[in-house]
């Protein structure tokens, strides 16, 4: 005959089992050595292993490398130091399914005692969809940024077309007039011709002023400089400029303790996008397709270099590389590098090129450190 205490105990067991079975989140109990004691149906759905494949085995089978190798160490560390790294807190970790694939999950771990022995209870919440949504959001934001930049270029192109066409139209007219004067040899021809030429010259100067104003507009417009992490800007730009589908080997080297830089993030991203896209185009079809990105500090500046393994820059291209409206691209406007240099110079930095000793081109630029007096902040 069961004692009242046993009855309560049985009821407790029944309730516990009902709870564990019905739970939407994965619930798991492991012993002090890591062997799985409880593994509910939600866990079976999450990991793809049936309960009998897991119970009694070490929980590390559900973890991808490097956690798999390190988990025994974590447990031993906790038992000897009682230092809590995840217990009572919980954090985002990766789980490993039976088929070897991984998924992001939020794991919270509690410690308890069962039959006089220490146990750990883990609750596993699958955050695959949540993370996918966040990633999609980031992609959308990046895309938006890119589109707004493109449309700014489009607007500028339209503005240029309209503004420059006025003096060009006038110049063409004065030139037609001049030709006509010469052909027909009018009386007073010389005076009229002089006038036509002088007016055409004025209009050409006016066209030059329009371009000057335009370049100023590009580098000044909405410029807002903040202390930024150049690493983060670089990573975002690389992700934008070089979609994963492209089979390009990208090496990124960051100097340790890289200080924050004082820049307009959007503008520097624009520069990086330009340089990275150019580099990616340069190595297209080359036997070795690699980009090497280096960051170093020099005086009060941070220097970023992008080296490609493309064909390098021909001397005639090099001579007018940073001129506006000079392009080697079929559909290019020839604004990219000229605008890039404007942006960097407006930041107090420099943009230049060097030949890559191993073949190809290197584009380098510098931007100022955010605070040069303080110790370099590890951002």
């Amino acid at each position: 005959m069961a004692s009242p205490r046993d009855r309560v105990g049985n009821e407790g067991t029944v309730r516990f089992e009902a709870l564990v079975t019905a739970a939407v989140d994965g619930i798991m109990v492991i012993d002090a050595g890591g062997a799985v004691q409880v593994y509910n149906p939600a866990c079976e759905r999450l990991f793809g292993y049936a309960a009998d494949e897991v119970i009694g085995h070490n929980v590390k089978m559900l973890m991808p490398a490097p956690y798999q190798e390190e988990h025994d160490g974590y447990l031993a560390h906790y038992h000897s130091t009682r230092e809590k790294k995840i217990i009572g807190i919980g954090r985002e970790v990766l789980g490993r399914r039976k088929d070897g694939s991984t998924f992001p999950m939020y794991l919270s771990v509690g410690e308890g005692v069962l039959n006089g022995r220490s146990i750990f209870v883990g609750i596993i919440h699958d955050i695959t969809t949540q993370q996918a949504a966040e990633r999609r959001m980031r992609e959308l934001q990046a895309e938006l940024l890119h589109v707004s930049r493109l449309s700014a270029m489009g607007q500028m192109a339209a503005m240029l077309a309209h503004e420059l066409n006025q003096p060009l139209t006038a110049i063409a007219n004065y030139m037609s007039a001049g030709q006509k004067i010469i052909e027909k040899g009018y009386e007073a021809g010389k005076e009229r011709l002089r006038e036509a030429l002088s007016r055409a010259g004025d209009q050409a100067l006016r066209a030059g002023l329009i371009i000057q104003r335009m370049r100023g507009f590009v580098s000044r417009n909405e410029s807002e400089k903040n202390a930024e992490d150049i690493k983060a800007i670089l990573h975002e730009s690389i992700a934008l400029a070089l979609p994963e589908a492209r089979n390009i080997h990208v090496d990124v080297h960051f100097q340790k303790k890289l200080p924050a830089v004082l820049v307009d993030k959007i503008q520097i991203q624009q520069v990086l996008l330009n340089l990275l896209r150019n580099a990616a185009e340069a190595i297209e079809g080359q036997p070795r397709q690699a980009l090497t990105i280096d960051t170093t500090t020099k005086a009060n500046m941070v220097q970023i270099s992008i080296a490609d393994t493309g064909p390098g820059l021909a001397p005639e291209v090099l001579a007018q590389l940073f001129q506006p409206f000079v392009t080697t691209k079929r559909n290019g406007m020839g604004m990219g590098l000229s605008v890039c240099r404007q942006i960097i110079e407006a930041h107090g930095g420099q943009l230049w090129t060097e030949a890559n000793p191993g073949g190809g081109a290197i584009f380098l630029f510098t931007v100022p450190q955010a605070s040069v007096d303080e110790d370099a902040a590890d951002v």
Partner: protein
Amino acid sequence: MKSANPTVVIIDDDNGVRNSVRFLLELDGFAVEDFGSAASFFSKCDLENIDCLIVDQSMPETTGLTLTAQLRAIGSKLPVILITALPDPEIIEQARGVGIYKVLRKPFPDNVLPKLILEAIAAKP
């Protein structure tokens, strides 16, 4: 029609374009009047005494298309040449709708304009 000395009007808000068109056309013996806005054109110009109108599409207050539509609305059959930096298909389509003789891209090649004016005047209904 004053075939010997046709009178041409140029309407463009840009001084450089206006003056150069005037300079060019006067060399060929056209009598030229110029206006910097649609408003000054309508208030000062005697429509009866002109043979051809050259008008810029993109002006601060109005467009060449709108101005031409206004002309047609008051019964004028004046030949009109529309000049524009960006003659996209939409503009060309609308220009046809209001009976514009020709849409000319700015800048225009050597001596196209005087020839076009004479053609437009000759084709006047």
